[in-house]
């Protein structure tokens, strides 16, 4: 199964996303931002980084790229899309997900292992998690505080569109402790933490079992592969 990973100028975690796809059993397909040909992939990942140096607003310029425009089109037809960190910012700027992401309350970049609760396991990217399962995923960002109007928040809560919530600490002041969202259909998911950094034993977050053994992120990619097989 082919999963595309888009590289924009300034993207940083594309190769890590490709590795995660490979470890999950899929075939990663590198895609270039300026090219609207998505090479018939079965799903797309918008990876983390600082596309266009976060100029204007995080993800704002990347949202205008030909590849992004094609993703928006195909997402409306059900293409599974995962936006990680800067990718989440691109999804929000593209209006595929509601709200906004702004600078951290504490104004410092922070890299930490973050506990999350998976609150919606009916999306293309979370079907292999239990409902309300607690997972550990690395977080690293300076702009990531989720904001939205009261109306939007009410809607998101009511429709169970909050895919992940921060547990223990809210690292960036996100409203309602929102760490990630899904769209109505469940094919588009965006989150600030980085599942692609918790896919390989020895390189993930520390757990009670052993140093760097956390691989909770792998099931994001395995979920979408399972979905493709089943569809």
């Amino acid at each position, binding site marked *: 199964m082919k999963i595309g990973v888009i590289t924009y100028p300034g993207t940083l975690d594309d190769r890590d996303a490709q590795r995660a796809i490979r470890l999950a059993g899929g075939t990663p397909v590198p895609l270039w931002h300026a090219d609207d040909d998505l090479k018939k992939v079965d799903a797309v990942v918008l990876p983390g980084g600082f596309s266009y140096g976060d100029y204007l607003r995080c993800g704002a310029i990347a949202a205008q790229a030909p590849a992004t425009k094609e993703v928006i089109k195909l997402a409306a037809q059900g293409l599974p899309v995962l936006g990680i960190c800067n990718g989440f910012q691109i999804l*929000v700027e593209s209006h595929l997900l509601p709200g906004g992401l*702004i600078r951290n309350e504490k104004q410092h970049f922070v890299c930490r292992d973050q506990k999350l609760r998976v609150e919606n396991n009916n999306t293309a990217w979370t079907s292999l998690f239990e409902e309300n399962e607690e997972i550990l995923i690395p977080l690293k960002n300076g702009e990531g505080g989720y904001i939205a109007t009261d109306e939007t928040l009410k809607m998101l809560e009511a429709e169970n569109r909050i895919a992940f919530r921060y547990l223990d600490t809210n690292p960036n002041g996100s409203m309602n402790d929102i760490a990630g969202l899904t769209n109505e259909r469940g094919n588009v998911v965006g989150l600030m933490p980085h599942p692609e950094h918790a896919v390989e034993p020895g390189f993930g977050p520390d757990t009670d079992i052993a140093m760097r053994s956390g691989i909770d992120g792998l099931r994001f990619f395995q979920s979408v592969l399972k979905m493709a097989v089943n569809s």
Partner: protein
Amino acid sequence: MPKIIVEIMPKQDLLDPQGKAVANALQRSGNKEISAVRIGKRIELHFDRPITDQDMENASAQASSFLSNDVIEDVVAITKED
């Protein structure tokens, strides 16, 4: 040089952490009369020829669709300058 100036501010009712941090710093350095700070952007669009009404319309469209994110920002002014 002819230009169109677009001014953008964060939405009134939303958080402006940058503004808050700056306000705190001003207060700490003795400017207690400043009650709040909000920080926005000023964007200049330069032209090689005089600006037309169509240009202003286009700029307005770009301002609300791309130069600002209407979820978190407001375009508060679009003016032209010779």
